[in-house]
């Protein structure tokens, strides 16, 4: 099987005060299409930075990322944005719904950005999948945390992305709600054969993924 995500010697350092601070140090790995990978590690080990680089949300100091055969950092910011739109879905710890848009409009957003004609039907269907059809016209501030994250899941899966990036998806939720979200996420993942790349503290969650990548002080610990 071919690798859909491939990181080679990814390094990220920032200058803090006088000394350069290495956040990621020559991280290399590959994820095959349809597989699931959990990036785990202590706080500050560089997990979110790695996820940001894999999704092209940030630029590395050196190294490269191949996403579905595209050299991510050979593209400009707009090129990366378009690639994300085609390939990726996102779930964040703090949901990141647009506050001015209703649940339905938030789910429609990635479809509309691609210029889909049937955005409304597909978004409605997606909301139904996560059990929120009745809340379609509510604004995010009128939804609970669990509901917001379900809207975020509906938004992430509505375009049937090849890759789903999830950053601590249960971090802001209580255990029971978190468990529901995880269940839903893996179900959708199974259904759409999505490649899942997940950042988490939660060992139980990590254990559900096919592979685990443990980061210690910016390096891959074997």
């Amino acid at each position: 099987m071919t690798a859909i995500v491939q990181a080679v010697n990814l390094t990220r350092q920032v200058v803090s005060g006088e000394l350069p601070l290495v956040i990621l140090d020559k991280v290399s790995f590959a994820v095959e299409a349809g597989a699931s990978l959990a990036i785990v590690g202590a706080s500050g080990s560089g997990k979110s930075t790695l996820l940001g680089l894999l999704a092209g949300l940030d630029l590395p100091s050196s190294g490269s990322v191949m996403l579905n055969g595209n050299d991510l950092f050979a593209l400009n910011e707009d090129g990366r944005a378009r690639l994300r739109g085609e390939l990726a879905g996102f779930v964040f710890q703090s949901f990141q719904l647009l506050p001015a848009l209703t649940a339905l409009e938030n789910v429609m957003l990635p479809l509309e950005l691609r210029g889909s004609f049937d955005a409304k039907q597909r978004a409605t269907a997606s909301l139904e999948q996560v059990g929120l059809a009745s809340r379609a016209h509510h604004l995010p501030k009128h939804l609970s945390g669990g509901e917001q994250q379900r809207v975020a899941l509906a938004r992430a899966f509505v375009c049937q992305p090849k890759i789903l990036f999830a950053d601590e998806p249960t971090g802001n939720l209580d255990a029971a709600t978190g468990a529901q979200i995880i269940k839903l996420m893996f179900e959708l993942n199974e259904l759409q054969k999505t490649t899942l790349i997940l950042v988490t503290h939660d060992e139980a969650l990590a254990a559900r993924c096919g592979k685990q990548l443990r980061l210690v002080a910016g390096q891959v610990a074997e």
Partner: protein
Amino acid sequence: MFRLSFNLLRRDWRSGEWRVLLLALVLAVGSLATVGLFADRVRIALSQQAASLLGADLRITSTRPLSSAYRAEAVARGLQVVESRTFPSMVSREGRVLLCEIQSVEAGYPLRGKIEIDDAFQGGLVARNSSRQPPVLVSGSVWADERLMRRLDLRVGDEVGIGARHFRIAARVVKDIDQSVGFASFAPRVLMNDADLASTGLLQEGSRISYRMMFAGDAVQMAAFRAALRLTPNEKIEDVRDARPEIRTALERAEHFLGLAALTSAILAGVAIALAARRYVARHLDGCAVMRCLGAQQEQLLRLFLYQFLLAGVLAVLAGLLLGYLAQAWLVSHVMPDAQLPEPGVMPALKAALSGLALLLGFAFLPLLQLGSVPPLRVLRRELGAPEVSAWLLYGLAVLVLAALFVWQAGGFKLGLVVLGALLAGLLIFAGLARGLLRGLTRLAKWFGARHALNNLSRHGVAVQVVALSLGGMALLVLTLVRADLLESWQGKLPIDAPNRFVVNIQPEQLADLREFFTDKKIPVPQLLPMVKGRLLAINDKLVSGETYAEPRARSLVEREFNLSYADKMPEWNELVQGKWWSKTDSEAANFAQLSVEEGIAKTLGMHLGDRLTYDVAGSRFTATVTSLRKVQWDSMRVNFFVIAPPRLLLDAPVSYLTSFYLPPAQAATGDALMLKFPNLLLIDTGEVIAEVRRMIDQVSQTISVVFLFTLASGLAVLYAALLSTQDERMHEAAILRTLGADSDWLRRLHLTEFAVIGLMSGLFSAASAVMLGWGLGRFVLEIPVRQDGFIWLAGVAGGMVLVMLSGWLTTRKLGRMSPVRILRSE
């Protein structure tokens, strides 16, 4: 608590949290102080200039000797006093005589202003007195004006006879001051030392002498002195405002306008502060939630932020004052280098400082209340904001503060309330219209981005931005509009060929000859207006006298003779404001007993349409009804009458005629020829007065242009604050959209759509309210016609869209290039 406030303030300052808010406040106080200090200096300068025309700050005039008690009272108050006596007398030289106005003055005259003399008038050789010391009129010598020198063919050093004595002409007066009000100063003038007057033998019983006592000194003492004065009926008080209707009008308009400009700055500042406070609150919700969790009480939090605001406010006010002082100093030295303005007073600075603090509290206090009531749960659920403070309360307080500032800054309820009324109406209408317009547009929008943009706008209190920008735009448009009209109406009123000579005492049998004279000299024949002297006896059969009125001006009007005139048609430079002008058939038929009264004097004397006025003209009485009120442009330099009647009403009254015309400077000798041919005529030269008014208008025009620039700068500050206030939301949104695949082109289109809509709405509302406010101001406050045309709409809409889109693009262009990674870290 205070120390914690201070520490928080310091930390926030370093992180840049305060910059926008303080920038707004510094700009606010800066522009208020600039306008205030500058206007104060110009105001002082203008009144000093006007005082110099009067020769004093205040003077009392009478036809009888003035009581020495006035002098004693003034001296006791530390005021300067000089007296002078003015009377008509013949001046002779080698058998030729000329009727002149002789003014004898005491040493120290004039108290204000400077008489410019040329003491070497040797056949064209001009050497003006340029020494700093005021020239002294030595006993035994006189100064003569050019009219006398020309007509009697005199030179400096020649001798002339006045009464029983001979005097040497020591100098020619180049620039005179203390010319009397109105028509008194008709003849050539001669100045002599008061000590010489007795020896001329002209001071006799029955001499027509006008006694003047002039005062100058500290403004406060002057006002107290004026208030304490108890004049006898035949004494008249004059100060700058009473003295010169044309200068008074100019001065009042200038003050109104500067007041308006200061108000505009206040509105703009308030708006900018409100916007900045909104951003400040949004950014501090988290911190407050944490402090609430840690046990801070609402009241503690409130005090914490209130102290910070006051601390920062005081600093900003001081910085603003410094900015204002420097700005006005720069203005004075660069824009009006010749103006020689006096140092500004402390009051405008104090006023600006207090206004700044009031604005800060009025516009930032309620948003602050929100911080106090943040639910601690926000620590867990970040999307929980503060409970919304009632918008009514929020705007109500702001409006209240503005109202107080308006009345204070404008120094008058009328101006303040007109602006405030428009503001309130604007607020309500804008907010409603903005909602409706957004809904309509959202339905129409085809492109998803546009719909998204409109959605965004209708859900993110964009009404605040639109209202803010509309108010700013309204103020700017009104200032542009009113400023242009103000300058235009002034310049329009004083055309190059404004009449500069008045001719009085023309006898009916001279009319034909006079017309012929003008034709011969190739001067357009002016309209010759009849004048009849009459005394007002009764209004609606109730006798009136000086005692009827409390106001000194009304008293003096009733006590002296009125100049009545008659005409079939209303003079074209008058404007009918009430009632109807008589038709020719009216005036010939039985109901010819009609009068048309100038609206100002009607108000002063309590006359109304339909009142019956009884006049005594040369011993015979008539009663007539007021059938129309007219508006008269006193600064038009043309002949005007308080009361006009149909010709038939005054048919039998003794009449003389008067007129005004423009005599080009090169033809000055024609005036002499006129006097030679018609020796009984009185020719009054008003050229000097016109020049003075023109100079004043020029200065005021310059001031207005400069003040306008400042208002413009404040307007841009509002725009900046408005855009910054939603910057954080926009950045967050852009990061999410980019993560979901939006490219920079898409984001740019999204933002430009948003800004275009904001600009369009603000522009539309600005124009609409500016038209209304401009009309109100022109009609009720400035009393000038304000032109209404399509340009203001074009300027509002196009200007609003271009300006908002351009500055919006400048503030958001980085968002397109920004890496969206901050979305992962923005928790």
